[in-house]
């Protein structure tokens, strides 16, 4: 019996350029990259040097403070280059791939055992531990910590999100193994969420997991929303979150001992000439995909969705853990008296524009900010998009003034940046909410460790 929740606060941003179930085939590249920038909260320490050979699943770098947190290579080949920025900060480790991938074999794991320590060890050494996010702070989980619960998010409700059932097709055994492996890691519950408005994915119904169902508006597909409804995080709690789309990767690491971080990735957005699903590994160079399927004229390419994704170059590499590519127009043009016009065709969550007359219209949104940054003026605006028992504006203020005690009291442990993404879109004052939350979590973490 699954528990059901309806999310009433929020907004579904409808964009043009949905990905139809159209197979764009395998996309591979000659070089692959692993970037520490994809992992907030990690101080990278390199495990390889340029010129060394690696196999898929060999450690590229690990966290200086928590050496058990390892980030592994998605392919086998030769480490071609370590790109560094200012102060020798590591930006990317580039691997020149072999034509056929060989895997570092860690051996299959006996899932019938219930040895948590061994399972934790297997998570860490195969590299799939990096797919788990730990709350509070929203950082890569350490296998040394024991989570209260694990939330597996099987709801993809973001703008232009892929169809999870289609993306997981044919991977039932790996999905089941992944859930089995996760269940070894906690004495609490493993919750698996599903979208009540999409077809139920049978593979996600596992006897060691508690099924939860969400209907209503986005952010129903943001795991923070789900946690807040089911069992909010208290101070001192650790909760792990995993995207259901990552389960097959975890499953394969346990069934075969191999690290093969690939997805059937949704390629969508108004600038995509041929939308569909491409099968790719993390860190794949995007040049061949973008030149073939995306109109690159004044385009922003995003790894992930428009709410939480990261900007990538057309010749850049696919960021870690992103199972979607979105391409939308850049909004670098001015608009004459745009703030006075009635705005029948403008996207707004607010009735101040007349576009509310057409609730089902799909928009071709660009990246324009639609105004300049201001101080907080409008109140009660964020509450409409954050279905949690918190006061978003007061919490943000406490972060801005650096009042750690107040942040704790107001529930900073319950949030990560993505929970504020929708509010950031709606913000009249154009404030960088996700960045503020990230800064707050970082300063809190520094204080706590």
């Amino acid at each position, binding site marked *: 019996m699954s528990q059901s929740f309806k999310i009433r606060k929020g907004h579904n941003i409808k964009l043009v350029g949905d990905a139809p179930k159209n197979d764009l085939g395998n996309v591979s590249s000659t070089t692959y990259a692993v970037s520490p920038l994809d992992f907030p909260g990690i101080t990278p320490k390199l495990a390889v040097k340029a010129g060394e050979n690696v196999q898929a699943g060999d450690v590229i770098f690990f966290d200086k403070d928590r050496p058990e947190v390892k980030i592994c290579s998605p392919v086998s080949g030769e480490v071609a280059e370590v790109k560094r920025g200012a102060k020798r900060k590591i930006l990317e480790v580039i691997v020149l791939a072999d034509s056929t991938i060989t895997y570092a074999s860690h051996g299959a794991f006996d899932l019938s055992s219930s040895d948590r320590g061994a399972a934790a060890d297997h998570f860490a050494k195969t590299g799939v531990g990096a797919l788990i996010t730990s709350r509070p702070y929203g950082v890569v989980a350490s296998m040394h910590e024991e989570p209260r619960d694990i939330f597996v998010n099987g709801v993809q409700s973001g703008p232009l999100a892929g169809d999870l059932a289609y993306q997981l097709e044919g991977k039932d055994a790996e999905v089941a193994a992944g859930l089995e492996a996760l269940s070894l890691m906690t004495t609490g519950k493993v919750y698996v969420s599903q979208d009540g408005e999409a077809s139920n994915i049978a593979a996600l119904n596992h006897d060691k997991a508690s099924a939860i169902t969400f209907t209503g508006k986005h952010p129903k597909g943001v795991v923070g929303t789900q946690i807040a409804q089911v069992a909010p995080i*208290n101070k001192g709690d650790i909760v792990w979150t995993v995207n259901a789309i990552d389960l097959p990767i975890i499953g394969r690491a346990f069934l075969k001992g191999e690290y093969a971080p690939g997805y059937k990735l949704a390629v969508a957005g108004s600038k995509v000439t041929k939308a569909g699903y491409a099968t790719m590994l993390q860190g794949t160079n995007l040049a061949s995909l973008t030149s073939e399927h995306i109109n690159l004229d004044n385009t922003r390419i995003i790894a992930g969705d428009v709410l939480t994704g990261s900007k990538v170059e057309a010749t850049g590499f696919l960021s870690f853990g992103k199972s979607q590519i979105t391409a939308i127009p850049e909004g670098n043009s001015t608009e004459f*008296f745009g703030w006075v016009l009635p705005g029948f065709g403008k996207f707004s969550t607010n009735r101040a524009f007349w576009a509310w007359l057409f609730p089902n219209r799909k928009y071709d949104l660009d990246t324009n900010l639609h105004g300049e940054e201001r101080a907080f003026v409008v109140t009660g605006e964020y509450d409409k998009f954050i279905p949690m*028992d918190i006061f978003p504006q007061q919490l943000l203020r406490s972060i801005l003034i650096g009042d750690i005690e107040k942040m704790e009291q107001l529930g900073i442990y319950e949030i990560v940046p993505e929970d504020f993404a929708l509010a950031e879109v709606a913000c009249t004052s154009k404030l960088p909410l996700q960045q503020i939350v990230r800064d707050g979590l970082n300063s809190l973490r520094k204080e706590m460790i």
Partner: protein
Amino acid sequence: MKFVQNIFDQTRPLVEKDGKRNILYPLHNALETMAFVPDHTTHSGAHVRDAIDLKRTMVTVIFAMVPALLFGMWNIGRLHYGAFGEESTLMDNFLFGALKMLPLITVTYAAGLGVEIFFSWKRNHPVNEGFLVSGLLIPMIMPVDIPLWMVAVSTIFAVLIGKEVFGGTGMNLLNPALTARAFAFFAYPTWMSGDQVWINTKGDEGAQLVDGYSGATAMGDLATTVGQGLNNPATETVMAQFGSEGTYSLMNAFLGLIPGSIGETSALLILLGGLFLIFKGVGSWRIMLSFFIGGLVMAGIFNAFAVNEFMALNPIHQLMLGGFMFGMVFMATDPVSAAQTETGKYIYGFLAGFFGIMIRVFNPAYPEGIMLAILFMNVMAPLIDHYVVEANIKRRAKRLANA
């Protein structure tokens, strides 16, 4: 629109950092961003954004004020010609009022924006849109005959002390427009109350006021009944004006055909603006509704325990008079100075309306009790929010304790 863009592009070097007229940069930026929504793109967080910005929010409020403003202009002319017993057409009335009103508006904007631009330049940030609304609110709550320099001084005081010392738009404790009015009220009481200022009576040379013409407001007249007891023959003539045939009849008060501050008289058009704001999601219905209920409750209590005619006035009639409706729709709802939590807004609105009527009736020296009540609640709003937020904190602590 290329030529407009060209003008901005050509003048930009003058006002930029090393330019000769750097102090004008905020003005240049304000005008440019007004003419063109800038080409800024998202660089962190979400990649797409809502079309709304503060300019849109503020201009929506201005649209909501326009009906009351136009009516106020017409009413100025109507009262003026009426005082001299002259015939006038709708257009005469309106044009006369517009000629009185435009200098007031111009002076307010010039004084207020001057201060804003100076601070923007000093603090190196763009001019905020908040004053677009304040600058129109201030003339609407002034008596028609107030000298322009007083308006300018009040506005400068309000922007400086009411807003900029706290850090500018978004940081202020008090509603700047009300601060301007409060300043004018206490600094120049003879120009802000009594029976001389509400109707423009500096008529054409030689013209005579109609015999027995009183230019007082309903509030001023009602204040004279305090201390006279109920059904006192002495107050009969005053109260007759509040009867269905009188100047201040419920219908006249509702429509706005009475003397008063320029924009505050027509309850009907203010309500229309209020509904527009609620519909657009810009004004808080929580504040407006609870404000109305608060006023109604207080007026109801007075009505039930009346010891003078002022208290005995029909509660609905009471709310239609003075600045109550204007305060409810346009003043109490200022998001920055109001309570910021949704629960807090109910409490804030209710108490502002409640105290507004209380001050007005208990202290007839302050006929504009609404203004003082809202300012008082502006100061109290953070306290209300504190308790609302504290409840959330306690709930969270309790959850932790039970975990």
